[in-house]
């Protein structure tokens, strides 16, 4: 017989109350994970995509806020490749296509570029130039399969899906990629690219050197803006940072609501047990031991609710989103992030338990025992 046996039995003595409290905590934690996790997921995926592809510099049209509006001459890529510090370049065209109600990013990549080389195909093969072929991300592939189709139509041009690729980026999971020239033709942007990815030789991958190269590029090609990939990611994910701050606020409010709900339960529990707690004092318990008993009870409820919430947050939402077109945006399972959530839950449980037990233990035990 151990202490957990008593605690768990005590918590589930009032099954409905325990169930409702655990549900409340689970939903709160799930919301927190959704609010904070999705932003984290998007940010990480950006870093992951650029990091994995070893892209050092991104070139886009000068003074163009959005990469979607950026239009460059794709031929610049060949010029950039001639620079002694550059090992490889790849021009890419980005077009946002509407499939049903969803915005699907469509990438045009050069057929022999590292962008295609570094893309892991889960099934099928690479698209062949001029054959009107495309590959799609895993999530878009599932969506198309659900609709029983193997084609995507871009501005009236039908492309056959010949492969499905894997990506850690939620944007790419619900995206399509086709040969650059095919996309240029389909959207009437012949010879154009939205951005150019540049890989430097290893000896040039030093922050100051990269800064110099970006400046050199901007001098050489006055109509472009060159940025280090990490700065580019930071700029492109700025909206996420703002969103993240808002999400953190909402998450914090949710956790406070969860703590208040738990505190409400603990107040009810402390009131209901006030005689029993006074008896424990009479039986030789110390106040600190009774407080610990109570905190443990709150922790058990919080841990069970938190565990369900974390599961729902990561797996449940993934499943629910999987049924919709926003299936790519599932929270990233990150150990530090989960530990933060767990810390917040446990912290709120301790706070929620301490106040009512403090009030109860500070009342006169004899009065409590005698009261009707």
């Amino acid at each position: 017989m151990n202490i957990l046996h008593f605690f768990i039995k005590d918590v589930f003595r009032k099954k409905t109350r325990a169930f409702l409290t655990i549900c409340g905590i689970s939903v709160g934690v799930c919301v927190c994970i959704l609010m904070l996790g999705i932003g984290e997921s998007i940010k990480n995926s950006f870093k992951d995509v650029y990091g994995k592809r070893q892209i050092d510099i991104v070139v886009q049209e000068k003074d163009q806020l959005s990469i979607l509006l950026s239009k460059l001459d794709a031929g610049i890529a060949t010029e950039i490749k001639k620079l002694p510090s550059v090992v490889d370049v790849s021009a890419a065209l980005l077009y946002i296509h509407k499939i049903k109600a969803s915005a699907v990013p469509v990438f045009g990549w050069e057929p022999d570029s590292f962008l295609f080389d570094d893309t892991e195909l889960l099934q099928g093969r690479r698209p062949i130039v001029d054959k009107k072929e495309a590959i799609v991300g895993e999530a878009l592939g599932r969506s198309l399969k659900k609709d029983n189709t193997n084609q995507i139509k871009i501005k009236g041009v039908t492309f056959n899906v010949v492969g499905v690729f894997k990506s850690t980026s939620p944007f790419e999971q619900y995206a399509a990629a086709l040969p650059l020239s095919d996309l240029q033709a389909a959207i009437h942007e012949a010879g154009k690219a939205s951005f150019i990815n540049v890989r430097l030789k290893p000896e040039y991958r030093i922050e100051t050197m990269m800064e110099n190269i970006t400046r050199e590029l901007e001098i050489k090609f006055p109509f472009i803006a060159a940025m280090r990939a990490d700065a580019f990611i930071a700029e492109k994910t700025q909206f996420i940072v703002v969103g993240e701050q808002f999400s953190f606020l909402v998450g914090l409010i949710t956790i406070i609501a969860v703590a208040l709900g738990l505190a409400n339960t603990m107040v009810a529990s402390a009131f209901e047990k006030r005689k029993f707690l006074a008896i424990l004092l009479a039986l030789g318990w110390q106040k600190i031991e009774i407080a610990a008993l109570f905190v443990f009870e709150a922790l058990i409820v919080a841990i069970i609710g938190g565990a369900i919430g974390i599961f729902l947050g990561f797996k449940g939402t993934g499943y629910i989103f999987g049924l919709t077109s926003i299936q790519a945006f599932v929270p990233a399972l990150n150990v530090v992030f989960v530990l933060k959530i767990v810390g917040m839950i446990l912290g709120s449980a301790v706070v929620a338990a301490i106040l009512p037990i403090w009030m109860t233990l500070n009342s006169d035990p004899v009065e409590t025992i005698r009261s009707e």
Partner: protein
Amino acid sequence: MNDIALQKNIFSTRNLRKFYQSTQTFALRDVSLDVPEGEFLGIRGPSGSGKSTLLYLLAGLLTPTSGEIYFKGWPLERLRNKAVYRRINIGFVFQDFYLYPRFTVLENMLFSCLRRFIVPAAIIKKAEAQLEYLHILKKKNVPVEVLSAGERQRACIARALLYEPQCILADEPTGNLDSENARNIMEVLQKINKERGTAILLVTHDEMVSGYAHRIVRIIDGSLHSC
């Protein structure tokens, strides 16, 4: 009375007073009482006369307004940890049993051991021995709400006996029992007193207590009267 005389008593009180601020009343006035070790003392008196207050003062759950309390000659006010004092030396038996519902008889007894992560097997054995002594071992795994009133009070006494205290403070232990069960409980307490030498201080309205206690005192309006 000198220190040696005080040490022979399990409890001694000198000019004990308790004033309740909330009701602006004296619950006890100048109570001086000696309870020798192994005594079965009956404390009688009308409701609100201060009987229970005396028990809670002896247990260290209340602090006297003035006067002294000695436990085996040791002033109670000098005890650093009254919780440990209660746990080791005192067993409480209440009129309303105060057993934790949904938990079994054995679990109720072992609640006081929850300070340890795992309840030691020796304590479980000890608890079972007390239940056997009180003839309710068969009910050890029965939830307390299923027990009869008499069985509940036996479970309550078994809980009080777990640490083999030197003294049992019983606050109206027969108050919620019919006469037959009340007699049985009084016999149980008498048996504990005789066989184990445990001092018993029993607060009651019941006339029947006279047949079991060594001595009866009365408290009327907070003042102690010998019978």
